[in-house]
């Protein structure tokens, strides 16, 4: 692992991309890293796109910004169009293939696909789509380990109902499973 990792999450406003990023941030902080979570806040308008950038480093983070994240988690088509060109050379691209109907044009990227919405719908928890994808990503890339993430589940969802936490954990683990089986 490098000394500094930057992960971009992007999708529609309602897809929970900001929470995905926050989750990762908490988990990394719990794992003793320096972290920052930076949303491109567009919340003043409904129905727009949303994205956030998580930086995880061993040392002080001088810039919580980048134009070239090492990894991008893309939840919809417009986000792929917008960010494909920005990902670092040989970076990682994770795609929600339920809502992205094309593959990247670049050939240097490590691409992983998952029909997130379908799987979430099938599981009966459409709101769990983001946790599904996150689980898969962590399983595959180890930005933080799945164990580290699970450890901080309680802290991250503090104040939420137990049933909701449980649903999220289920989705997360299903994602982990999916990655193990398919990626």
């Amino acid at each position, binding site marked *: 692992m490098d000394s500094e990792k930057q992960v971009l999450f992007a999708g529609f406003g309602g897809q929970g991309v900001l929470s995905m990023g*926050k989750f990762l*941030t*908490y988990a990394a*902080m719990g794992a003793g890293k*320096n*972290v*920052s*979570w*930076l*949303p491109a*806040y*567009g*919340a*003043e308008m409904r129905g727009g796109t949303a994205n956030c950038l998580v930086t995880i480093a061993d040392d002080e*983070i*001088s*810039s*919580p*910004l*980048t*134009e*070239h994240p090492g990894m991008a988690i893309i939840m919809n088509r417009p986000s792929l169009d917008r960010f494909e060109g920005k990902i670092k050379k040989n970076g990682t691209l994770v795609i929600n293939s339920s809502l992205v109907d094309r593959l990247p044009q670049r050939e240097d990227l490590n691409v992983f696909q998952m029909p997130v919405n379908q799987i979430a719908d099938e599981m009966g928890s459409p709101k769990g789509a983001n946790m599904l994808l996150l689980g898969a990503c962590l399983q595959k890339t180890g930005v933080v380990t799945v164990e580290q993430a699970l450890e901080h589940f309680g802290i991250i969802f503090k104040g939420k109902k137990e049933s909701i936490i449980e649903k999220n954990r289920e989705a997360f683990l299903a994602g982990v499973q999916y990655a193990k089986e398919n990626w």
Partner: protein
Amino acid sequence: MKKVLMKGNEAIAEGALTAGCIAFFGYPITPSSEIAEYMARKFPLLGGTFVQAESELAAISMVYGGASTGFRVMTATSGPGISLKSEGISFLAEAELPCLIVNISRGGPGLGGIQPAQSDYWQATRGGGHGDFQIIVLAPSSVQEMLDFAMEAFDLADKYRIPVMVMAEGTLGQMMEPVIPREKVTQFIGKPWAINGCKDRKPNIVNTLHLSPEFLEERNHVLGDKYKVIKANEQRAETYWTEDADLVVVAFGLMSRIVKKAVMEVRKRGHKVGLIRPITLWPFPVEHIKKAAETAKMFLSVEISMGQMVDDVRLAVNGKAPVEFYGRIGMIPSPEEIADQIIKLAEREGF
């Protein structure tokens, strides 16, 4: 204390609470609303006052009333809200009422956008209201500083009886970083001028009307003298690698962190570049710039605006070296972009 992950807006609110702020008066506006929301959650539990005012005008007036009682009070908003508060800020400055005003700034002019910007620099440091007055303006660059500067702001405000503004790019309000909480402040300066009922003393008056020209002038000199003291004592800046720098970049706020990374990058490539990061935008750190101007061959002001602070850099450099400008609007340039700019300049000038 243990680090906590916090949004910049929450950190500012938490800093204010830690500093003993007992009332928040504000009107929601993106990207600053979380400050109000945080206070709305906290004050009912802590016994303080949260009032969502009917407008920014009302909010700053409530601050005027609140501050005149001698307690620590605050408001928070973004660009258009500061415009609406500018009459009130002029009143606060003249009445010498200490308070905290937060501008989590966004892009303008007009309704503009909600993306980060630094284009309220002039408004904050100069013409944000009619008449001759200044307020102290602090520019944090991390979520930790959002908390710390809120506390610092209240101390400066009380010390000099002056409104203090914390101005941060929208991004800084929205981003999360781990923060070390601070000890709660419990000791405060006495405020014999406060309006709280004239028991056992002569009535106090808070007023900004001075119909006699002579007295109006005297008041302006009282303020002017105070501003001189603040200029002498409170200029703050951070400097990095300026001692041997051919090119000194000046940048504040979150922007300065991006520039810092770029400067590190460019240093690696062998160019002698340094960074001055103004912490107080007013008083502007003239002394730091002057010192750097003794050796630097060129300055570059990097701002998220069309170029405002660059005037202050030029005034401080006073012709000793050329001062260039690079700016973006509505978006924060990346370290890569800044590095490119610096290298272009360095190569053009041959250093």
